[in-house]
């Protein structure tokens, strides 16, 4: 019986490359990882947005209308719907003049119960320390 914590850290911007999208889809894949593991073992993901990566969290992304690809906004909502822990760096939001009003904070309209946590970088550093493995996207 063991839980391994994996931190998925997103620091890249969305869309230009596929990187931040793959961070989300891999983190969400933690929902089905049990089938590969022994009883009681599991992976606990934490999704972390830092630096320019916080711009992935903006609301009103029209990527599906414009380019036919799911927006990062929708991916983050899916993560929240599946009760993933989502942390966004407070200092980096401040850098871009963003507040909780500008970013995806919940997935209520699709039935999600957990919310995005805006936290200082110190809290993120603690999560990097407590994680067993780091995946930096």
């Amino acid at each position: 019986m063991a839980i391994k914590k994996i931190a998925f850290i997103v620091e890249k911007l969305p869309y230009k490359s596929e990187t931040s999208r793959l961070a989300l889809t891999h983190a969400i894949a933690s929902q089905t990882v049990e089938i590969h593991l022994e009883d009681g073992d599991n992976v606990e993901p934490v999704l972390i947005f830092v630096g320019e990566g916080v711009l992935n969290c903006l609301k009103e992304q029209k990527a599906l209308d414009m380019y036919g690809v799911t927006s990062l906004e929708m991916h983050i909502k899916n993560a929240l719907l599946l009760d993933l822990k989502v942390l966004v760096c407070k200092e980096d939001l401040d850098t871009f003049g963003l507040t909780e009003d500008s970013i995806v904070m919940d997935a209520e309209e699709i039935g999600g119960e957990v919310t995005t946590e805006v936290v200082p970088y110190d809290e993120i550093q603690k999560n990097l320390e407590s994680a067993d493995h780091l995946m930096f996207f």
Partner: protein
Amino acid sequence: MRLAVFLSEYKEPAMLERLKAEKLGIVLVQNGVYHAAVKKDGKVSPVLSKDVEYYALSEDLQSRGFSDSDVVDGKVKVINYEGLVDLIFNDYEKTIWL
């Protein structure tokens, strides 16, 4: 020469400072649109500090969560792909994609 420089990333390429042209246009596309749409530490991007023509692609602004009116500096003209075609054929002779 009349030169349109396409900027597709949210950084300031060294080359941008050097390029000279009788008519220079900077076209913000892909992640280049962040130069037009966000301020960093309250300041407009240094990329917008030149005395040249600026354009930003509407489709790329909207994909990223911005509306055309979110552009932080009035000198940036928001265009769509159709406008971009006209720009390439009518307003500039050469292009560079940075």
